[in-house]
């Protein structure tokens, strides 16, 4: 398929996504994780129907990088907030710990299975694979939680707890990706140690965030603001890519720095939120098209280990929450399964790996992320809904007119 047609298809998806955000015309259509677009991408991609050839797909790598960057920039700009409210620090820290625990469990399982499944794998590839799958398999997507909460009109302490844990859990996997991308030796004219590269990844984001905040100043002009936001995000993507660093981490830090340093945090969030879904759908489609089930002979074992470890990890998190919070006890172990949905962040990490490590490592991480996202879609939202219903926090009899669209910014 010609690159222009692919571009038109992606724009069409972005267009559809923008209407899903609006929520007036196609209310309620779409899965919380956007997994259907991953599947669609996989079907039209070189793996199944081959409507988009691999060479054409690679022509879109820069676009995919920009889309990922923008998506995560928006995530960073709205990080740690639910609507107008900031997530309390203890809940944020709890979110980090939950993600760190799950990610470590998933990564550890992959690490253990690799010597047996792929004995010839180089040590660096083993680290990247285990780390990458661990990072991609650690989150609970906030979209799924919002989807359940908004569609079933859930409100109460457990809905709030889960929502806040999900809102805060992006930081850990993104930092992990920064570390992993800094591990392989980079082709730089001036040698920089790994920790230095991680520092540059974060530093570029902070500097660009500060520049954007300084440029936006105290007063606010929308026309100029878009230019500044596009400018810093594209420059961030370009610099990170040029230095072979983690683009998504840089852009996350950029968004976060901007939201911390700029007095226009709320206005910026209001501007950026509607752009999230239109960018996400094409990015998920591209990610799906990159999925390669034949990437490596050890792929099934990696996926099996990752999925089992993730289910076990989230189950343990559920057990932990039952132990800590009295309000969650009536829910039972279903709560852990309710934390299984993965989505845009997992797929973004997978796609970032596929773009950075163009070979078996990247393809395996992306494919594992896609399987984790799909599995989460089948089990997660229904479990979460059932758990919240059991707690009496859902109101399915609420009038439809008062419901909000999936994916709408909370």
């Amino acid at each position, binding site marked *: 398929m010609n690159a*222009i047609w692919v*571009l*038109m298809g992606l*724009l*069409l998806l*972005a*267009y559809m996504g*923008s*209407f899903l955000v*609006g929520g007036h015309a196609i209310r309620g259509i779409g899965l919380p994780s956007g997994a259907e677009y991953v599947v669609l991408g996989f079907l039209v991609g070189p793996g199944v129907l081959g409507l988009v050839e691999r060479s054409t797909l690679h022509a879109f*790598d*820069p676009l995919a*990088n*920009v889309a990922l960057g923008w998506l995560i920039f928006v995530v960073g700009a709205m990080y740690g907030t639910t609507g107008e409210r900031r997530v309390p620090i203890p809940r944020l820290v709890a979110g980090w710990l939950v993600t760190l625990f799950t990610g470590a469990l998933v990564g550890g399982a992959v690490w253990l299975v690799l010597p047996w499944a792929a004995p010839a794998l180089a040590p660096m590839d083993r680290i990247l694979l285990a780390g990458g799958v661990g990072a991609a398999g650690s989150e609970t997507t906030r979209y799924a939680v919002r989807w359940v909460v908004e569609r079933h009109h859930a409100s109460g302490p457990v809905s709030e707890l889960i929502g806040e844990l999900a809102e805060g859990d992006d930081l850990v996997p993104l930092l992990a990706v920064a570390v992993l991308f800094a591990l392989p030796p980079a*082709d*730089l*004219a*001036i040698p*920089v140690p790994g920790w230095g590269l991680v520092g540059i990844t974060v530093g*570029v984001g902070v*500097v660009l965030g500060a*520049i954007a905040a*300084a*440029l*936006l*100043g105290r*007063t*606010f*002009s*929308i*026309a*100029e*603001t*878009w*230019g*500044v936001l*596009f*400018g*810093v*995000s*594209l*420059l*961030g*993507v*370009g*610099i990170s*890519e*040029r*230095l072979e660093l983690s683009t998504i981490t840089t852009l996350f830090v950029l968004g976060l720095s901007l939201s911390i340093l700029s007095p226009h945090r709320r*206005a910026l969030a*209001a*501007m950026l*939120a*509607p*752009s999230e879904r*239109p960018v996400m759908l094409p990015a998920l489609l591209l990610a799906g098209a990159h999925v390669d089930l034949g990437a490596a002979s050890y792929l099934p074992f990696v996926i099996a280990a990752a999925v089992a470890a993730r289910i076990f990890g989230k189950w343990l998190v559920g057990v932990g929450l039952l132990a800590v919070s009295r309000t969650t006890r009536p829910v039972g172990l279903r709560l852990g399964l309710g934390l299984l949905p993965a989505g845009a962040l997992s797929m973004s990490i997978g796609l970032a790996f596929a773009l950075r490590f163009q070979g078996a490592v990247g393809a395996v991480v992306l494919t594992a992320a896609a399987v984790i996202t799909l599995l989460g879609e089948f089990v997660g939202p229904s479990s979460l809904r059932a758990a919240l219903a059991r707690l009496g926090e859902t109101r399915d009899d609420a009038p439809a007119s008062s419901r909000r669209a999936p994916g709408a910014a909370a």
Partner: protein
Amino acid sequence: MTAPGAPKEAWTRVVQAFVLVALFIVLLAVTRVVPVLSNRAGTISAIGFLLLTGTLASELVEVVGLPHLSGYLLAGVVAGPHALKLIDHRTVEELSTVNALALALIAMEGGAQLRVEALQKGLRSLGWATLTQSTIVLVISGGVFIAARPFIPFLAPLSPLALAGVGLLWGALAVSRSPAATLGILAQTRAAGPVAEGTVTVVMSSNVVVAVLVAAALVLARPMIDPSASLSMREVQRLGYGLLASVAIGTTLGLVLAAYIRLVGKQLILVFVALGFGLTEMLRYMRFDPLLTFMVAGFVVQNLSRQGERLVESIARTGSVVYVVFFATAGAHVDLPLLRDLWPIALLLCAARGGSTWLASRLAARAAGDPPAVKTWGWAGLIAQAGLTLGIMTVVERDFPSFGAGFRALALSTVAINEMVGPVLFKLALDRSGESMKGPEPSLSSLTDNT
């Protein structure tokens, strides 16, 4: 950044200057750490860098009364492959793809600025301006070009007839204007009045006039330059088909756009991007003129529907991105070593073009009975040249390889001067004629409105 039009504090300027320097240092450091690009990261960072530095430079040149476009150009020149080399040649070429979108939007906005009532009111002025500009500028610019033969090496081996042919091509090239520069200055100054309206009308309609002139010049010049070639009307015929098809497609597009804005009215930016890339590619494949097509589409939306204001407003929202990228890229294109070599002759040719434009403008204003402001300043908006001229130059280079390279180099040098001087003159004209800041304030009605 402060709201448009508001005066800026000295502290804001200091911060802007500091950030500008910091950005150059950051990219300079990155290019030193990774000197060779292994992927297309350069294009992405170049767009981001030009957006930021162009915006900042435009704010800083405002202090000395220069237009924003000069700031965009300056940022591109300094960062470009002939100065600091932060953006290499390949990246500059790749940025031209992005410019397809910019040109589509600029052309559509240009078309939408043409109102039938204004055209009817100023038909006499437009007619005289078109006639004088097309003839006087062509004759004088071509004549000076021929007279300067001793100083232009690639003209030396040509016979007198061939020289006249090349002079004709040069004259046709000199008639071309820059719609982008005109609209960019108007977007910044929000000017309203006879000079602004007259300039938009002449510049936008000159697109069609120049297309016809260039085609005619090519037809006439070919047998003059190459004695074995015969006078062929194929070029004119092809042009006729192309113009007709472009107008037809543009009209259809305009009607569809108007219906879309009325019935759906959302996500116009996405629609523009799809049109800018998709339709431009299709039109180029069919060898139609994208600029004319989009201009006609804008004209149709403005004059055959009630959606013109919404279209203009939506395009204007992209101005902070579109104009910066377009002109900063144009700045990066400026070949400084070439300009250093050819500046005396390029300056002479620019002076001839500028002088003939002034003369033509005075004569047209007198004949049409235009207001004094137009008589004095009507010429200033017609000096700038950019993308359209470069397009014509490429056609000449392709069709006449024997002297094409030299012709291109000289044309590039004169375009570089005109694109730097033109916007400054036009802004000066609008400021002096008292038309700046008389247009409506840009609408900032809603933060979340992303139509």
